[in-house]
């Protein structure tokens, strides 16, 4: 079972992103679940969402405390929240950032793969709005290979239309995947 935690801000589609990952997994004949953290604060406050993937039905409905992968949809969140918390050995980190280098980050030793993408820029260029979820899904797919891009794109197109599929494609292309040894 893979566990994923997504960090975003309200309005970036953080929760939806998690659901799309699960959709892709399920369409491949696998399983998954996803849900937001149920907090109090709204608008403007950091949003967290959880995903579990597996090839058997997923039983726990708890929060994810030890993720195999963390996805950050908005660079600013990293100032407010410890996004690295609990990352498992050999885990994957997917960051929306203007940086192309991992030196700028305090990446914990348990992380094995880092994906960097300037998702905000891509979103602005493709969609005209800084909604980064569809872009960063591509980075996630590229970095982990846990789900099939075809299904991700299917769902993105169903939910948000073709422009977002473009954002996905561009995101996939421009994501830099770095393996840490």
């Amino acid at each position: 079972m893979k566990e994923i935690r997504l960090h975003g801000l309200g309005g970036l589609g953080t929760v939806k992103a998690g659901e799309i990952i699960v959709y892709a997994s399920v369409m491949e004949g696998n399983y998954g679940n996803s849900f937001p953290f149920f907090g109090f604060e709204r608008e403007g406050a950091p949003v967290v969402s959880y995903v579990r993937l597996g090839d058997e039905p997923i039983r726990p409905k708890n929060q994810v405390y030890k993720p195999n992968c963390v996805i950050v949809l908005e660079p600013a969140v990293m100032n407010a929240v410890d996004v690295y918390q609990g990352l498992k050995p050999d885990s994957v980190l997917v960051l929306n950032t203007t940086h192309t280098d991992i030196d700028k980050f305090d990446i914990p030793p348990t992380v094995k793969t880092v994906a960097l993408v300037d998702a905000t820029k891509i979103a602005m260029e493709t969609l005209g709005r800084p909604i980064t979820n569809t872009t960063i899904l591509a980075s996630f797919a590229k970095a982990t290979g846990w789900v099939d891009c075809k299904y991700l794109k299917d769902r993105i197109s169903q939910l948000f239309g073709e422009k977002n599929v473009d954002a996905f494609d561009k995101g996939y292309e421009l994501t830099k995947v770095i393996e840490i040894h």
Partner: protein
Amino acid sequence: MSRVDVLNGNQAAAIGASLARPGVIAAYPITPQTPIVEYLTQFKVDGKIDSAMSEVESELSAMSVLTGASLAGSRTFTATSSQGLALMYEPYFRASTLRLPIVMAIVNREMISPQTLWGGPQDSLTIRDAGWIQIYVEDNQEILDMMIQAYKIAEDKNVLLPINICYDGFYLSHMSERVEIPAQELVDKFLPEYEPEHIKLDPKKPMAVDPLTSGYLLMEYRYRHLAAQQEALKVIEEVDKEYADLIGRSHGGLVEEYRCEDADCVVVTMGSMSGAAKEAVDIKREEGYKIGLLRLRVVRPFPSKRISEVLKGKNCFGVVDRNVSFGWNTGILYQEVNSAMYRHGGDVPSVPFIGGLGGEDVKIEHFLHAIEKIYEGAADGVDCEQTIWLTNER
């Protein structure tokens, strides 16, 4: 054709209810139930359902509209949570004593005060004695399946009782997962139309509904109500089997047993936290504990005999309650399972746990701890005054 989708619990409930083709729907929004109402109104405007819908001014009114519609002969649906359920309590009680097979989803949410929005079945458990059938589910597939089964159970001629399908707010209502949606034709085959014979407001066949009644007749009606609840114990199992035969999924009927057969101790759970509990059981099994899990699905009627069959002869059991019984210093289910054991002559020490109130996460670690405590109880006996609270310190 049946199809697979990724649905959150509220979608599963809304789709499940729609497949049953209710004639009248009335509901009032409340977190975390609100999306159900929104999905249904969207289905309606999109022409996917032809139910009459009423966006009432309160939950008291929602249940009252359904009481009227059901008395007129409609199949009906509503959904609510916590305060909404509390506000409709007067007509809620009456719907059961009029033997109206209304189906209501309860998206379990903690009762205020403290002011809260989050999950926990305190809302429906506190009023479990109002004559309804109450079924508690574990995941979104079970939500959808049970919405459909609910009508079949409720409308069974030997039952004729309203029914709640209860699921944890947020933990299920806002969680998305794989759900198989049966084809409408299959559901239609499974579920015949509702044709009330026992009570109906119809100018073509006038009758008085609920005239003033003497005590001795009242006792007869109560007797029959209790008998119908007992009958439901059978019908729930039958309907589960029928559904499995036709649609291919069973959820265990009255209870779900998980690795109980050869277990020497058992942890009793309910609702969405059972998944984490099963993980814990597996972990402990690997460590050599012969632990099993009993998931309560049906709280009303309380399957006391069935429960005692599972627990009798074990060394110890524990009950993890996501609710409190204020006057007992334990959870409600612990109190009732004990009663079941006493009545059916069990004699197994038991440990009460309370956790997960107000939406707190009941983690695998909590269950690992609870299992340890159950084994301690088996070994050293149980302090019958003490309840173990499973908390997340902050």
